């Protein structure tokens, strides 16, 4: 990334040269979802509803897994799960 | 520079006629500009079209108020519209009619040339009795009055710009050209 000092260092229009993958929004969390696989029926409703694409399903038939790098802790998955397999926990501070 | 004004009814082809005259003039090495009276139109409504022709480039972008020639495609219009308004004192008139100059009420003292464009058009199957397409015939007659445009250029332009029946339109123009005499 170039160091910006004056207008001459700018591209002609705002453009980003990196992907949002480098922006780990997991650090925004104050509560985190925990999945209890014993209760999970693999309906994948949590995967469908996650607004952040932070619930991964590697292949059909697998249990969903939460991607804690990006999960913002909004709680929609816990709210929507029909089997109450997800509950929200306070984020532990490191 | 000469200025021509054409009067017709919507659907008779007055605007296409002005375009054909411009094309013919350009073919003959002159400069021309043709345009309709910019307005909303419907079939049967009086339509006015204009054409300027000059040996030098035409730069005026405004209407024509004192034409050198007035061409009347539909004589019935003379009762509705003052088709001769602004006509220059030495200007000439061309009217599509079968009647003679004496029979017509023409509120102008200018030279009048008459051609039965309707008859010629119908003879070549252009339009119908109630709605004859007289434009190509009448400009064929006009070119007789204005020999700076050659009849050959006019016929080429007619073939180029006529949307349908190109040969019939060209024949109508040629017939009118041949038949017209300056009255």
């Amino acid at each position, binding site marked *: 990334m170039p160091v*910006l000092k*004056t*207008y001459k260092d*700018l*591209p*002609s*229009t*705002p*453009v*980003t*040269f990196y*992907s*949002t993958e480098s922006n780990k929004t997991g650090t925004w969390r104050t509560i985190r979802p925990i999945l209890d696989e014993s209760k999970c029926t693999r309906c994948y409703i949590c995967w469908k509803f996650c607004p952040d694409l932070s619930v991964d399903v590697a292949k059909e038939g697998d249990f969903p897994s939460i991607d804690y790098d990006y999960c913002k802790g909004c709680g929609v998955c816990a709210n929507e799960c029909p089997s109450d397999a997800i509950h929200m926990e306070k984020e532990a501070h490191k | 520079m000469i200025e021509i004004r054409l009067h017709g009814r919507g659907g008779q082809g007055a605007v296409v006629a*002005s*375009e054909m005259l*411009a*094309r013919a003039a*350009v073919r003959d090495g002159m*400069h*021309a*500009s*043709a*345009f*309709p009276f*910019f307005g*909303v139109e419907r079939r049967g409504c009086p339509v006015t079209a204009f054409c300027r022709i000059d040996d030098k480039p*035409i*730069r*005026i*972008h*405004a*209407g024509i*108020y004192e034409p050198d020639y007035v061409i009347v495609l539909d004589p019935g219009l003379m009762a509705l519209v003052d088709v001769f308004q602004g006509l220059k004192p030495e200007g000439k008139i061309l009217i599509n009619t079968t009647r003679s100059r004496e029979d017509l009420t023409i509120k102008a003292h200018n030279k009048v040339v008459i051609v039965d464009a309707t008859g010629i058009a119908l003879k070549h199957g252009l339009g119908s009795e109630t709605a004859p397409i007289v434009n190509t015939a009448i400009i064929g007659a006009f070119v007789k009055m204005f020999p700076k445009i050659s009849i050959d250029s006019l016929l080429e332009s007619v073939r180029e710009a006529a949307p349908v029946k190109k040969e019939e339109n060209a024949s109508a123009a040629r017939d009118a050209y041949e038949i017209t005499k300056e009255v």
Partner: protein
Amino acid sequence: MIEVMTSNYAAAHGARLSKVEVIAAYPITPQSSISEKLAEMSVKGELHGQYILVESEHSAMSLLIGASYVGARTYTATSSHGLALMHEMLYWATGARRPIVMTIVSRAMAPPWNIWGDQMDVIGERDTGWMQFFCENNQETLDTTIMSYRIAEDRSVMLPAMVIEDGFILSHTFEAVDLPDQDDVDDFLPKFNPELKIDFNDPRRFGGLVMPDWWSEFRFRIAQDMEDAKKKIIEVDKEFEKKFGRSYGGLVEFYNCDDADVILALAGSAVGTAKHVSDKMRERGKKVGVVKIKTLRPLPAEELTKLNDMVPVVGVFDRSFNFGHGGGIFSEIRNGIYTPGGGLLTKNYVGGMGGRDFTPKHMEWVFEDLLRIKKEGKVDRMIEWIPLRDGTGRWY
């Protein structure tokens, strides 16, 4: 090849010859025959690019910005309320640095509803950052369209351009136009090759948020590039003349100005009428000159300041009125002319709006008025609407 056609068809041919790749246009009088002609060309296979139907002018501009981001040469045309509907996207096209070329067939804004020629629609878009080029005749419309791509797509410019023709007065008038050969245009116009564009193999994001700490610098770059465009415009005009034999002066054209007593500045189709009248008056010993404003944006201030040394009186004709201290073009020209201490007298003539005819007689009246001002050494009133109904109901 010489063909007799309207300015609208000339614009359509200009787009075709420029090998535009994406066209999205919504019809509006008096632009409709451009869309129709392009659609006809598309169906006949004469058009290199794709013609896409959209549901509004706003959508048309949005679509073109997207297409331009991918590296396509784009084109559209509109008038009046269509242009106004695109207004927010015009700012976007500028900020996104997309060299879209758009024909504006200028028409009055409503109400009162009016379909005829007037320049208020384009005067209202001066602030968007689009370049604005005015055309005097049909040939110029075609030539300017081709030149605009060359100017706009240059990496030192990368700004969109409006090519403006007066509604009906040019758009529906048949004039002889010399259609250049496709090969010659291909030589003159290289393929569009933007520095920044969407590439799926190299994904990036465009048009994102910029905080106050850097926003002004982006804006400054656009201002700089708009200023630099002046040089490019003159350069492209000279190259066009070398290739096709026709020149329009680039920014302005001085006509009959060399030893003029007074000068009238104006833009659009009325320039032709002004030149015609200027020649006729010169034959009678009246030394009147004409400045043709071909480019309004970027404003050719350097050329306009020359007027201070040429004449004591400059009139400006506006084919619109935007309720300022004088009309739009008048304000721009006064600003361009301005030198501290300069004593140049200026007067604004407003007319020909909503399709009202501005005839050689009116033009002559304006020149005579300017000569009178020169003689008396003062301006009677800053703005004169001519013609205007005088109470007897007659106006010409």
